[in-house]
């Protein structure tokens, strides 16, 4: 809804009254409405709502326990603990965001965590130094992501099925590679990365890694041509292709990035637990997708911001921490997370339907029926 520049200021508006005396009052009231609506829609941005939810969760958390946001990690490292426990899913959510913006999905990330952990474990157990293992594991992540991307783009298979297949395939590979064993005793200086803090602060290393990655993703998605192409593909794939976007290459690259990031998350998880088993990371895809959707990214593609995803990460971390301090066990947290996911999608839909309803009522009052405006039918 764009405003006609002529009717923007009060002066021009006054000047128009004598000319279009019959339509002016209506235009005036509509103009006030649209201005009010603009202000409202700036306030009703998803990120603002998320900040409100986050504030509410933190406030509630402080009611539950005084330790909730105690930043002094010597006494109560709750902040660090709750945040670092979320960082694997958080960094995967960053890489999932461009994929979902392009209208695809990658369900296989949780299995890539298992596979990368398994390979790391096997290589480490075989006596290969960890400085060599980590690049190999990251390369495996890229290959796994490329495989997803190739199947989706070269063969035109739906990403949902492809990554459902590789969800089973990569988990199966992890099972085959590692079997029922588990490997632990990774070197101390590396496990410190998993659950340690940046010296002298309460900031966990994993949080630092997440924030750095978040900045990279934010810049790439919101400030470069790559990001613009990603949104273009998500809004209209064919139009993007006709205007010169190499859709297949872009998608394949994003799946490769997702694989790489998932492998990195697998390493982080392995180091944080100081142990790998082939079922590492089972069920995390749900949380990753939930964070992205809660962050306001449209699951049908074309819309979303990294800022929203970052806010969603902290909302989830705060919620989980509050629930834990409130004595709610992790199984029951499922209820809260599932409800949060559903409501995070339902609420804007209800708001939209309400707005359509209000519009319809107003339209009926203000406008004669013989001039119906073609209105997009919500599907």
């Amino acid at each position, binding site marked *: 809804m764009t405003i006609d520049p002529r009717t923007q200021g009060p002066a021009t508006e006054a000047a128009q009254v004598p000319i279009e005396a019959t339509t002016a009052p209506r235009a005036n009231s509509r103009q006030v409405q649209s201005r009010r609506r603009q202000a409202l829609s700036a306030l009703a941005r998803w990120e603002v709502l998320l900040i409100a939810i986050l504030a509410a969760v933190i406030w509630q958390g402080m009611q539950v326990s005084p330790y909730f946001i105690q930043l002094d990690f010597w006494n109560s490292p709750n902040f660090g603990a709750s945040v670092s426990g979320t960082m694997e899913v958080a960094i995967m959510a960053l890489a999932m965001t461009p994929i979902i913006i392009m209208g695809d*999905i990658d369900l296989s990330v949780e299995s890539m965590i298992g596979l990368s952990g398994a390979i790391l474990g096997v290589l480490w157990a075989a006596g290969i130094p960890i400085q060599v293992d980590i690049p190999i594991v990251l390369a495996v992540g890229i290959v796994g992501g490329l495989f997803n991307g190739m*199947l989706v783009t070269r*063969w*035109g*298979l*739906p990403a*949902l*099925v*492809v990554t*459902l*297949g*590789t*969800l*089973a*395939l*990569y*988990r*199966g*590979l992890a*099972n*085959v590679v590692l*079997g*029922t064993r588990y490997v632990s005793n990774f070197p101390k200086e590396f496990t410190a990365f998993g659950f340690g803090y940046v010296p002298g602060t309460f900031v966990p290393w994993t949080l630092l890694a997440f924030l750095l990655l978040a900045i990279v993703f934010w810049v790439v998605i919101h400030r470069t041509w790559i990001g613009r192409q990603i949104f273009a593909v998500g809004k209209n794939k064919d139009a993007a292709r006709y205007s010169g976007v190499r859709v297949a290459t872009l998608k394949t690259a994003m799946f490769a990035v997702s694989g790489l990031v998932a492998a990195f998350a697998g390493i982080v998880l392995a180091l944080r637990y100081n142990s790998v088993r*082939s079922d590492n990371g089972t069920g995390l895809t*749900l949380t990753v*997708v*939930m964070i992205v*959707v809660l962050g306001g990214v449209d*699951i*049908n593609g074309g819309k979303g911001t990294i800022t929203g995803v970052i806010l969603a990460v902290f909302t989830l971390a705060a919620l989980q921490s509050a629930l834990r301090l409130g004595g709610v066990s992790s*199984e*029951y*947290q*499922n*209820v*809260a*997370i*599932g*409800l949060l*996911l*559903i409501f995070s*999608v*339902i609420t804007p*839909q*209800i708001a939209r339907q309400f707005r359509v309803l209000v519009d319809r009522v107003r339209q009926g009052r203000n406008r004669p029926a013989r001039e119906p405006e073609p209105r997009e039918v*919500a*599907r």
Partner: protein
Amino acid sequence: MALSAPAKANRASPVGSLVARAARSRELTLAGVLIVMATLVAIAAPNFLSPTNVVAVTALAAIIAIAAVGEAFVIITKNIDLSVESTIGLVAFAVALLLKQGTPIPIAWVIGVGLGLALGMSNGIIVTVFKVPSIVATLGTLSLFRGLTYLIANGHEVNANDLPAGYTQPASQTFFGLPLFVIVAVVVVVSAALVLRYAVIGRQFYAVGSNAEAAATIGIRSRATVFWAFAVSGMLAGVAGVLWGIQYGQLYASSASGQSLAVIAAVVVGGVSISGGSGTVIGAAIGALFLGLINNALNVLVLPQEWLQLIYGAVILFAVSADVLIQVRAQRAKARSRVR
């Protein structure tokens, strides 16, 4: 389905089109592969065909097949239901709790199936009334229903001792040589197939899935259709949940975790297109039997169970790629015949 009509019309080379048609009928190909595999396994391990093993293979496959039929309804309408495993788990646990408290068996079963129906309907409401994409909605209810199971379980499990004596008997019973579960599954599959093929509402599922707007223009209420697809999926997951309880007798709050993958894999392997509008429930059921056979073959041949997920993944990818390759080839053949 719509794709094969013009292909049938041009009969350039009879042998080629026959092969193409057989290859395109996923049910036939899959059944063929199934028989060949079963024969090979039976030769390698004769006890594969022993009555106990046959009942064991088919019992779990029948449960998955029933859930897969419901999932097929949803996928045909171009949606997806990821929450089936949680519905199965919740229904199985709720029925077991009712039985533990002394509810008569038939009433507990009816309540269980009704609960499944209600869960499916709530999925349907979230998807159609609130217009939440089905993948997000059912991802949410996947964890929500599981969480509810943990709530009613309250840290306990239900043992076979808590259930009425002989409750798990039907799982191993046979009638005229057919396991009871298979009979139930066949009844479900056949009635669902008849509805989808001949009933008006059945054709509407396909119409909505292949082109929702075109369906709307000819007067199909697509939202209501999608709602009923989810309701059917929930109800059949409820049936599967009741059978799950009979099969295992011992129920945890985490029962049936991870089965959504098996159910969706069965549907996809059975030739139901994930982009909606084509496929049959018979294919989905054969897909479930096929996956069950692979699972059991690993057991009987004493191969490491770790390979199972790997094979499932490979089978899913192979099945969808085969679809695309056949489609591309058919289109090329059509284009060539048009040029000629």
